[in-house]
């Protein structure tokens, strides 16, 4: 009998203890493609978030509360993203980092807005800020900024006359291609051919043969590296004598692996890659990442998302609350937060402003060299 009582008391006290601990945590969500085609990128985002959260927790947490990360795998699919959004909201997160693709980000956006959950994503599609949700903060730079830069590089620097623009059907890729075409036309030039490929079909020889007849100076592809590498190989195999320029999502080691020998000479347009970031915060966090995971972040996208997380934590600390509306108001007015990827400033619609873009040329040994910057 006595034993039972003690056991009961013990059980009760552990219950109290666990609820106490639970009250001391605050939840942050990660929505990213942990598996599937872009697993490499999604895992990079999850890893970087883990690194920064662990550092924060060691330093005493956020306003004295330990941070708990809830991860949901959206496989870069819109349907899965919508499910993830509901899952993360139900788990009680106050902010979500992700997702990697614009499509998956857009599919989840409204759910977060309705539930007053902050969201920060690297998605570059211009449509992401169309709804002007106060919950949404883009931590990368929009397609239109990249489109303008690309057009300027093509027309004024390279003086290309015959330009072919290819994209896939995703909202990010088609959006980037469209803003590039618009920017080229604004500069008084025009595009010879604008085509779309179906991502993942592997065989692009038919459209490339069609392009060959146009004798282009340059083929610009605004899609992802999984297709970009194959397009480059097949372009060379068909002996299409044109430069190949890839949009930011081709900036991935797998592009070079896929393209093999034909990777040399390819131009990639992107924001500075992790190694080229001149900021103090960059060195510190990239070293920490390498020490913990024994490899470099897969690309800049994991790093900008890390900045998104750091900015939100900064907002919590400055406003001394977890009230997402208050944090959002603070972030919209914030000036030059020292991010890993440079100063972070947001416009009223959640757009990150102040893009700096570079052209990387892939060298024979598979390394990148900055060949143009502005």
């Amino acid at each position: 009998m006595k034993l039972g009582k003690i056991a009961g008391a013990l059980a009760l006290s552990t219950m109290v203890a666990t609820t106490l601990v639970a009250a001391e945590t605050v939840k942050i969500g990660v929505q990213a493609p942990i598996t599937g085609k872009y697993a490499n990128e999604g895992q990079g985002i999850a890893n970087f978030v883990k690194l920064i959260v662990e550092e924060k927790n060691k330093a005493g947490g956020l306003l004295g509360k330990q941070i708990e990360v809830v991860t949901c795998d959206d496989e870069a699919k819109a349907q899965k993203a919508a499910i993830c959004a509901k899952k993360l909201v139900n788990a009680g997160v106050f902010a979500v980092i992700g997702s990697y693709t614009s499509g998956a980000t857009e599919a989840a956006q409204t759910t977060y807005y309705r539930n007053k959950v902050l969201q920060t994503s690297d998605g570059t599609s211009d449509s992401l800020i169309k709804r002007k949700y106060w919950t949404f903060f883009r931590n990368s730079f929009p397609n239109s900024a990249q489109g303008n830069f690309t057009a300027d590089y093509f027309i004024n620097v390279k003086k290309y006359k015959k330009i072919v623009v290819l994209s896939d059907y995703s909202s990010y890729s088609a959006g980037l291609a469209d803003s590039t075409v618009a920017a080229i036309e604004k500069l008084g030039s025009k595009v010879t051919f604008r085509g779309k490929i179906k991502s993942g079909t592997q065989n692009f020889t038919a459209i490339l043969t069609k392009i060959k007849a146009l004798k282009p100076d340059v083929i610009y592809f605004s899609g992802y590296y999984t297709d970009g590498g194959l397009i480059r190989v097949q372009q060379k195999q068909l002996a299409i004598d044109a430069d190949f320029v890839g949009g930011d999502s081709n900036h991935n080691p797998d592009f070079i692996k896929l393209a093999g020998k034909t990777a040399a000479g390819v131009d990639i347009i992107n924001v500075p890659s992790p190694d080229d970031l001149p900021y103090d915060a960059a060195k510190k966090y990239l070293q920490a990442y390498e020490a913990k995971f024994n490899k470099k972040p897969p690309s800049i996208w994991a790093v900008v998302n890390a900045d998104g997380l750091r900015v939100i934590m900064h907002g919590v600390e400055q406003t001394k609350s977890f009230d997402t509306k208050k944090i959002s108001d603070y972030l919209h007015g914030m000036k030059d937060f020292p991010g890993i990827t440079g100063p972070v400033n947001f416009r009223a619609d959640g757009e990150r402003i102040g893009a700096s873009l570079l052209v990387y040329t892939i060298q024979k040994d598979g390394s990148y060299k900055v060949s143009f910057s502005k």
Partner: protein
Amino acid sequence: MDIFLQQLINGLTIGSLYALVALGYTMVYGVMKLINFAHGDLVAFSAYVGLTVFTQFFGSGATSFVSVIIIFIVTSIIVAFVGVLLERLAYRPLRTAPRLSAVVSALGASLVIQNGIMLIWGPNMQIFPADLLPSTTWNFGGVIISYTQFVILILSAVLMAALYIFINKTKMGTAIRASAIDQDAAKLMGINVNRVIVIIFVIGSMLGAIGGLFIGIYYRALTFDMGWLYGLNAFIAAIIGGIGSIPGAMLGGLMLGLFNALIAGYISTEWAETFTFVLLILILIVRPTGLLGEKTAEKV
């Protein structure tokens, strides 16, 4: 003209790959009246096996013609073994069950193989080593054909011719044809139908394995769900040619590849698939049993 010929080459290359895979569907259907949905995933599986055989035996070192042949042989044997295992575990127990149960079993097997690939090799894209075959290309007045394309075209043609001779001129081939017409009668004539089915699975899986390896060597990007892409196209090729007919599968595969390339090249790249399938539906309206499919009286 050179652009047109180039599109022909493009279409024939991808068409040969479809045809190799389609043979697996059509042979199994011919004898068992079963659509082996797992066949596409077996093709993906063989590309992964080929990659592993390569890295295990040859590391990332220089490749030679001999090493490529060894990869083809070892992979074909492994995949044939898995194909036979598939028949034993997923199809044989259901041989007398209603046909729909077997189809569901096939779909299940497809998912098992696909998820098996994901568990063994991981969900990330795997990349086949470059230059397994020499990266030489030949230029015939603007029409370019690469070494790999050439090998794909020639080897597929040789394999298909060999299969045609095997089915039509050998004793085993006769037994396969007999089992396709009427299994019970074949049994009464002393044909071991179980053995015929095992042989069908061995040959079908080996051809699929060779198709999968070519896909790996030619396109180089492997994803665990790629089986659906090639499986579906090959299945359609088999239907167009007349499922159950071996020359039909070859013709269907080549036609599908050619249609797609020519429509993409001359009508619209964005609508290529739509137009291809409209054309294929038209063929089926005119010839419901496929181009070379035979009209057989339903045994009711």
